[in-house]
């Protein structure tokens, strides 16, 4: 597929748009439908598209596998970290209201960081899944 000119050009133009849309879904998640899960999957689809057109090696150059593994862990740690910080500030686990001085600002901060963690983990796990399968199965 790597030789198809239309595919290559379209992918080059489309990937940034998909990533931008993913970021929109990610950071608008606390006001409108969206959030980490959706954003992560959309983000990973951009990399998947890139990998499908330009091949696995090119995609691995864009996002190295070690980075993905670290990112997957960091996402979970961000999530838990918010919970632990809220416990340290005297609330229950994942009680966003105590994160900042005003409860509403705390809620905002809490949900954004949580969704960011979810987004990072989902995106990196999805890409990792793709890489793992793609490497394992040689094209016939």
């Amino acid at each position, binding site marked *: 597929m790597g030789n198809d000119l239309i595919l290559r050009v379209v992918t080059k133009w489309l990937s940034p748009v998909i990533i931008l849309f993913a970021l929109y879904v990610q950071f608008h998640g606390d006001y409108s439908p969206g959030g980490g899960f959706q954003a992560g999957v959309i983000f990973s689809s951009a990399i998947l598209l890139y990998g499908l057109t330009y091949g696995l090696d090119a995609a691995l150059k864009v996002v190295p596998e070690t980075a993905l*593994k*670290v990112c*997957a*862990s*960091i996402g*979970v*740690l961000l999530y*838990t970290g918010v*919970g*632990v910080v809220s*416990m340290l500030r005297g*609330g*229950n*686990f*994942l*009680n*966003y*209201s*105590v994160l900042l001085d005003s409860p509403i600002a705390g809620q905002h901060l809490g949900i954004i960081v949580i969704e960011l963690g979810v987004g990072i983990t989902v995106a990196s796990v999805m890409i990792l899944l793709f890489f793992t399968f793609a490497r394992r199965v040689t094209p016939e």
Partner: protein
Amino acid sequence: MTEQITILLIVIPLIAAPITALFKQNFYAWMITLLVSICCGVISGYILLEVIDGKHLIYELGGWRPPWGIEYKIDSLNAFIAFIVSVIAIVTNIFAYRSVPTEISKQNIGLFYAAMQLCLLGLLGIALTGDIFNLFVFLEISSLSSYALISMGKKRQALTAAFSYLILGTIGATFFLIGVGFLFAASGSLNISDIANRFHTFEDMQLVVTAFIFIVLGLALKAAIFPLHSWLPNAYGFAPSTVSIFLSATATKVSIYALIRVLFDLYPVDYWQSLLFPQILLVLGCVGVIYGSFRAWQQIEIKRLLAFSSVAQIGYIIIGIALMSELGLTAAVIHLFNHAIIKATLFIGAGILIYRSNTTKLEDLRGFGASMPWTFAAITIAGLSLIGVPGTVGFVTKWYLLEAAIEQSKWIVVMAIVIGSVFAIAYIWKIVEALYFNSKRKIHIHNVKSGDIKVATASKSMGLALWLGAFSCIYFGLFTEFPFASAYAVAKGLLGL
């Protein structure tokens, strides 16, 4: 302050697992896992002491009030189960240090330990949560990690075993989810105590019966209750030794715990009594005991033998639940604890055999007992507990169970227990006979030069884990106060006495 401690049981593995996944060296990954399980053990022990006299600990996740938020409601049953799970995790990890590097390929070791921690997290979560959908999520966390763990077994049958467990486990979980959906449609709530409190308002709806059947079927599949046990023997038989120990001692127990919660807390007791459900359970339990023991006796390979014996032991627990009396329930709950110890010890023994001889076939192990007397002494002790010889933990359970059955003059149940025990003697004898009384046979060890010193000695950490198990088999058989007090408190709480 005590309330904040309960959530730590979930938070500690949740923080540690992603970090562990990044490690490659066995030692660090193992160290973190051991520390996590020790922390969980201490915390759950502390919680158990707090709630054993009938107090409740309530923790509202995120500060949201139930029934809107997720609530963790800890009574003596939750704490007892959490305690069993984390203690078994500690023992398993002591064993794991030497065993894992020989069974798991090097690049997977970090992931292996991370999956162990996630499994622990899921099981503890099931034990703690008071929200029925949250229970589903934790059930799937523990199941997914156990599918992955089982598939890491050395033989290729581990893959097919994991696959069929994945299919059946997912069907079970989805059935559970359908049931929860029906219940949610009827009640509009997911909080167990909230549903139970308002149960009479929607009792007449047909949905509620359907929900009950789906939920119980789903959990029975996960708990491997007799006709739904087909995934268990292969899954435990082919899993890596560490995984067999941990899962056989905890996974089915926790599913049975969830079943007990549904039967006694979610639904009112007389509701399912009128559905003839205790009778059905009783029959399944009795058939399970006889069938499981019989199949165990037929096996020629230790790990599969033990796995089939698990099916029988689950049958005993189900009988205890189905008798619906204070004694029966006490026996069931004690057996959750006792069977966890016994099976963990026996699987540790099997793990040591694999570590040293690379085989668990009884025929290959003939006369092996003479060269490792201590290991086999411990295996024999655990085996005697499985039969129920006085002075061991198995006796305590069977005694209460028989007493409960005689109390209600259910002679068929008594017969089933006796037949099961006879078969238990037969299959334990099979092991003992092969190891002690048969003439020695030169065993063929793969990839090891004959007379290699590493193979000739069991490692200290493995021996420690084994003897911890064997010692507690006897200790809790002689001094029954602790498990009995906990189990009795649980039974009283469940029956609302």
